[in-house]
């Protein structure tokens, strides 16, 4: 199947002009309605740790899926060790020596380390699993790369760091010479990160190539030998971590061009819409995901929350929406304490919601658009009359939203699943705006939508703000945050660590705050 490159050589020792383990030329990948990757150029030398950095949604994952054979590029070439390769499936990529360590571990908890590692490529003697052979090879791998694995331990007893090493061993066991690590540090605590970097150094010493995907710039600079930056689906350049500062990297990552200078006329009115006091959300283990957050959103104000994903923003939004209980603190909406209100009561009270994952929380994919118009607005006209659904009203109003918000679809009876992401998002925004909420929770409102739709959505949010709506904006797009916000908070490990003036802050400074590299004392 695979017309993959030559068998892996010992590599690394060649020195000088080290040959390229992986080279991508002009890779373009389109999905209906969007181009996820465009003219990607990537050159990874054999025996190096090569980092690929970019914001969320910049197209890193799409690129890695291409390289791992999970889908085929529409244009461009993949070269392994100088030879062109065509992957039909991950199996082809594995045969060609490429291994992927996913961000979310794919391990069976009730199996031993050995069983997990050999799963899918079991050594057999007769028809039986040859445990001795498997154990011998796993020990060999574990010793060669200092992974410190016990083949007979149960995976459920292992910590996160160990599980990740099992994943790495799994890939090495299949003979990978190029390892792709997708956001490997996202799940690790700092000590585990250091251990992981130690392991990566071992892999490098043995001549293996590592492609390391991340958006944590400090870590990237610590571990990578070279860096490729991706922005908006295309490669914008490479950098040498020894001579590039985190600041310069952030600049490349977010793009130096700021959004068009705004009129900046403040529409902020004194009346607070949302008042969150010492809001705390804990997970089942009692760890605080949102830790004593206090913030106020006033009428006509956009309050932006910046932060690296996974620092509690999603939980904060869900707590305000009533989807997660507050373990401490209180939420006020227009002066009323809504801490114990149901989600429906909160919606009726005037909260609109643009969820970060529209497929999970914003839409019924297998239902018609007019039914999606009703979703979240089951209690009010025009879609509902008393206890009954007003089908005609819902259809008519859906047609209106489609017209006014430029939702491109054949009609209100179209299934939501048939729409592109941008059109789905415009429908959601149109729906939420139609109820004229007092407070709009907008989580990543332009994620995964094309640039045209993005501009439209920004305009809609600005108009809503001018009309006096309070907006709480969570985003990973620094331009968006700086451009739209009146007040900007930075969230790190569940806490608001800085409050910045968006008219004075640069994306680089903001990036520094987000990773904790800068402290509050530095700015604001």
């Amino acid at each position: 199947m695979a017309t993959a490159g030559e068998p892996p050589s010992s590599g690394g020792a060649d020195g000088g002009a080290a040959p390229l383990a992986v080279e991508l030329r002009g890779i373009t990948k389109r999905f209906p309605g969007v181009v996820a990757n465009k003219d990607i150029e990537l050159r990874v030398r054999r025996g190096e740790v090569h980092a690929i950095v970019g914001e969320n949604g910049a197209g890193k994952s799409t690129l890695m899926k291409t390289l791992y054979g999970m889908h085929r590029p529409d244009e461009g070439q993949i070269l392994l060790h100088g030879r062109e390769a065509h992957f039909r499936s991950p199996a082809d990529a594995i045969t060609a020596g490429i291994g992927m360590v996913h961000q979310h571990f794919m391990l069976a908890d009730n199996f031993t380390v050995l069983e997990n590692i050999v799963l899918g490529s079991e050594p057999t003697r007769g028809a039986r699993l040859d445990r001795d052979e498997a154990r011998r090879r796993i020990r060999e791998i574990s010793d060669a790369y200092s992974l410190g694995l016990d083949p007979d331990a149960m995976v459920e007893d292992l910590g996160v760091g160990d599980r990740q090493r099992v994943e790495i061993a799994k890939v090495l066991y299949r003979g990978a010479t190029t390892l792709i690590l997708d956001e490997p540090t996202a799940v690790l605590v700092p000590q585990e990160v250091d251990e992981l970097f130690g392991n990566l150094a071992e892999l490098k010493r043995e001549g293996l190539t590592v492609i390391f995907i991340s958006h944590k710039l400090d870590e990237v600079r610590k571990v990578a030998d070279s860096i490729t930056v991706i922005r908006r689906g295309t490669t914008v350049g490479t950098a040498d971590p020894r001579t590039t500062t985190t600041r310069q990297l952030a600049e490349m990552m977010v793009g130096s061009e700021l959004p068009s200078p705004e009129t900046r006329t403040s529409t902020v009115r004194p009346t607070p819409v949302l008042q969150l006091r010492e809001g705390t959300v804990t997970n089942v283990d009692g760890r605080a995901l949102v830790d004593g957050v206090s913030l106020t959103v006033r009428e006509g104000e956009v309050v932006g929350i910046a932060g690296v994903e996974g620092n509690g923003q999603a939980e904060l939004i869900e707590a305000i929406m009533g989807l997660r209980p507050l373990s401490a603190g209180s939420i006020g909406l227009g002066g009323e304490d809504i801490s114990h209100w149901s989600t429906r009561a909160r919606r009726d009270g005037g909260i609109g919601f643009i969820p970060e994952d529209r497929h999970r929380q914003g839409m019924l994919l297998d239902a018609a658009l007019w039914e999606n118009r009703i979703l979240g607005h089951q209690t009010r006209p025009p879609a509902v009359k008393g206890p009954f659904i007003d089908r005609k009203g819902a259809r008519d109003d859906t047609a209106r939203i489609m017209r006014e918000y430029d939702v491109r679809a054949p009609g209100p009876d179209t299934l939501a699943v048939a729409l592109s992401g941008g059109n789905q998002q415009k429908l959601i925004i149109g729906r939420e705006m139609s109820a004229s909420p007092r407070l709009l929770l907008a989580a990543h409102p332009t994620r995964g939508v094309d640039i045209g739709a993005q501009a439209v959505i920004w305009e809609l949010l600005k108009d809503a703000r001018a009309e006096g709506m309070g907006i709480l904006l969570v985003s990973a797009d620094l331009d968006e945050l700086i451009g739209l916000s009146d007040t900007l908070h930075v969230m790190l490990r569940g806490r608001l660590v800085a409050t910045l003036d968006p008219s004075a802050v640069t994306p680089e400074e903001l990036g520094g705050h987000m990773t904790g590299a800068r402290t509050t004392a530095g700015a604001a």
Partner: protein
Amino acid sequence: MSALRRLGPTLLAPVLAVVAAIIISGLVMAALQVNPFDVYAVMVDFGDTPAQQMTAIVVILNRAVPLFLAGLAVAVAFRMGLFNIGVEGQYRLATIMAAAIGAAVALPGPLHVLLIVVVAMAVAAIWAGIVAVLKVTRGVSEVISSIMLNFIALGIASYLLTGPFRGSPEGASIISTAEIAESGWMPSLNWVFDALGLANPPRQLSGFLLVAIVVGIVISVLLDRTRFGFDLKATGLSPSAARASGVDSRGMVIKTMLISGAVAGLIGMPDLLGSTHSYTTDFTAGLGFLGIAVALLGRNNPVGIAFAALLFAFLDRALVPLQIADYPASVVTIIQGTIVLAVVISNEVARRIALRSAERGMAQNGPPPAVGDGGSGPAQPAGAGRATGAGQHTDERQEAGA
């Protein structure tokens, strides 16, 4: 045109399934050296005289009524993604309780019937409610608990029948509860035949047919036209999206199971009120399980369920003529089984066709491709999106229960 297009995929799946089932069963019969055409001829032969033909139709209708109610009971829960496998136990327990209480009281006609029906609905709803409470408070899968409760219900029913509720004399070959007084009988609908100028068959057309039609309309309106029905459908399609829209998932589980159970309580009523007037050891069993097949074939749509119930009733009626003609009666079981298998497959096929036609519709009307950041939303091919959706579905359902 648009109505036809909307109905197209809905009709396609069951029709495909029935055709496939007829062909497959024919092949099975041929393999067993039975001429399938002869068998099918016997099945569609309703007799020679108008009275015989009318009798056949009455038999089919009488059988279809409980099947329809069973299908509805299952479908209400199905719409929300809940599998009420416990309909069997719910209606059996409900019927014996209703039979015992009906026999113990004396009331004027309509009130007596009403009391019996209300008792049956209440008992079945409570029994289904146990499943719901276990699910929302303890996270017990409704599939497991409802199956287990079936055994308990059947055990309790046997105990009640042989013990406290026994009405038949010692040593009788069929044990039964005491007979309900005539005021608690449901009048038959045979006057309809006279009114329509048709041959009046000796069989009694169950008066419960009218009740079933009313229940069907009520459920249909409830599911498709009310806010409650919308919340229920939304929860079934995406529990997470429903929750974010303000649906209280726990409350929905309880309400839905109570409604499903209340409808299940009606299943035994046509026979109890129309013909047997007591609960006996040989009271019609298995309707709860057939109801699952009927709901599946009817695609959880009340009208579809009505057709599915008629089809299953038609197949059931053929049992006796087939035996008389010396053909194996298991033919009917084979056909019913293959229909269920075929409907599962053809539902999926129809779903894909619908999706593809939706995508084609978009292609003609779709937006020009623009450069953008991919990765998440629109980038997912339909298949992958579906797969993740299904995964979340399970997670969420467990979450809702936890």
